[in-house]
């Protein structure tokens, strides 16, 4: 880009950039010194978040990556409807997702009451947190992996097949390695969405606290200054996730 384009497009774009950066800077400047004030329940919330988010991510990945591969390769009637439903949680407001989950897994529902009788309550429990996080975050790994699989030349798979490898061996040895940066980015984004999940978690499992719900509770009790510690932890996670995604998506770019 030459000077004139840079000024026009960069100048207009800078407005949005500064709007995003300003609160970030204000937060770090405003919280200097206040950071050591850790509210009660902080430790428990960190542990809860660090247990539930990886579990939700693992569930989404184990089932979501095959689903993504299936959607990228199979053609069938009604595929567009299946795709729409898989992506739905991505655009559905989390509070609505939470309400839906309560209708499906609440204590008074068939599924929920059976689970309670087995000693595994699906709401207001860590299981409930995982249910909420998985519901809201899983589309990330499906959508990103699907795009990754779609960009793998199918002739690579055909080549593997003609060599005598079956479809499962071909998936493990050819398709998955070729799409691994996209799948990796999807997993990381799913984790970020899961660990930051708030709306659906509030409805399904107000207790036990995760970091986002703790921030809300602390905010109600003590205002903005009370949320610094959990917010900093989550900011750290977010920054790590962004760096990881950038690294993953850089690799193929450099090779081209």
């Amino acid at each position: 880009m030459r000077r004139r384009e840079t000024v026009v497009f960069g100048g207009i774009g800078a407005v949005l950039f500064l709007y995003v950066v300003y609160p970030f800077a204000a937060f770090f400047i405003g919280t200097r010194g206040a950071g050591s004030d850790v509210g009660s329940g902080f430790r428990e919330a960190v542990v809860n978040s660090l247990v539930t988010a990886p579990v939700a991510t693992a569930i989404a990945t184990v089932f979501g990556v095959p689903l993504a591969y299936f959607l990228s390769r199979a053609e069938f009637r009604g595929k567009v409807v299946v795709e729409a439903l898989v992506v739905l949680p991505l655009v559905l407001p989390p509070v609505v997702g939470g309400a839906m989950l309560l209708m499906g897994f609440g204590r008074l529902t068939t599924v929920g009451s059976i689970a309670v009788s087995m000693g595994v309550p699906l709401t207001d429990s860590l299981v409930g947190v995982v249910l909420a996080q998985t519901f809201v975050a899983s589309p990330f790994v499906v959508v990103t992996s699907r795009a990754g699989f779609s960009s793998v030349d199918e002739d690579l798979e055909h080549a593997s097949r003609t060599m005598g490898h079956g479809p499962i061996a071909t998936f493990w040895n050819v398709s998955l390695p070729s799409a691994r940066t996209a799948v990796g980015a999807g997993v990381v984004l799913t984790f970020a969405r899961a660990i930051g999940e708030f709306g659906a978690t509030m409805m399904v499992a107000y207790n036990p606290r995760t970091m986002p719900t703790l921030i809300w509770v602390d905010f109600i009790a003590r205002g903005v200054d009370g949320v610094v510690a959990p917010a900093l932890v989550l900011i750290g996670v977010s920054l790590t996730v962004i760096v990881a995604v950038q690294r993953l998506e850089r690799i193929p770019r450099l090779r081209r």
Partner: protein
Amino acid sequence: MMLEVRGLTKSYGEETAVDGLSFSAERGEFVTLLGPSGCGKTTVLKTVAGIRTPDEGRVLLRGDDVTGAKPEERQVGVVFQSSSLFPRMTVRQNVEYAVKPHIDDADERRKRVDEVLDLVEMSDKSTASPGSLSGGEARRVELARALSYEPDVALLDEPLTGLDRALRNELKNEIRRVHDETGVTTVLVTHDQEEAISVSDTVVVMNDGEKEQEGTPREVYRQPRTRFVAEFVGESTRFDGVVDRSGDVTTDEGAKVRVNGRGEGGEGDEASVYVRPENVALVRDVDVYDNIFSGEVVELTEMGSHAEAVVSTEAGDILSEVRGFSDVREGQKVVVGFDDSDAVVVADAADGEP
């Protein structure tokens, strides 16, 4: 017969890609499917490989019907149109992966990988990643990989497309050499007539999903049986007219073109006569040629090894190849001549066109 394709038909939606195509390849034969882009030749190749399922027709390998078999159940080696080396494996790992389902013993496997990399002269690049190879090197490795497990048939889909002319020539000779050394039955797909003619034992000319002609390179070039083949395979001058009693053709402009034995046409048939530029000589006076037309050079194109002159005559524009040091100039009055035995007739009865 190593490979037989019988009555293959395949449609994508409303579009018929291949329409009742049959051809076969004997053990060790080099067969080329030649045709313009979109004529269905890649679909034929993918059907033979088991990647596409035909709507109708059969594919036989070594006499066994494999029409419904999966790709991994056939013994075929494929070089795809765009490079299909596995990007996360080295050159060596690519070949090893191909050999693995076929040879259990690790030592024997290693030996085989060495052999085929040697065969295509890529041994010194065995630890390279596919991304670091040049276009020609990648093609060599793909060829080695496709042959490494000694398939019944090697299927090569436009392996020379996208390469420079000099490299194309080199790799074409390489492909033929490797074929001759391994003796593997080979089916190559191309839209380049020169490539098809210079590399194959048998050429199958395709158009719109159908077979136009099958024969040796020389037959296809010298004895085209349809207008499409005459015009797609090499350059020619075309005269349109009607076959007279003696078998010669009187053109629409009233000129008579003498024909001797090549092609067929009954008296009164609408027919086209084709003559190749290399068989048309520029002469100063009437000569020993059976066909003589006088005219004027209206276009002269230098081609390096020769020049091509377009001569405007009473029978239309005639294309002539001019060789050696020549003082031919545009605007010059000349006489062109060609033998009746170099003129090929394609009559409508044979062509099926109106």
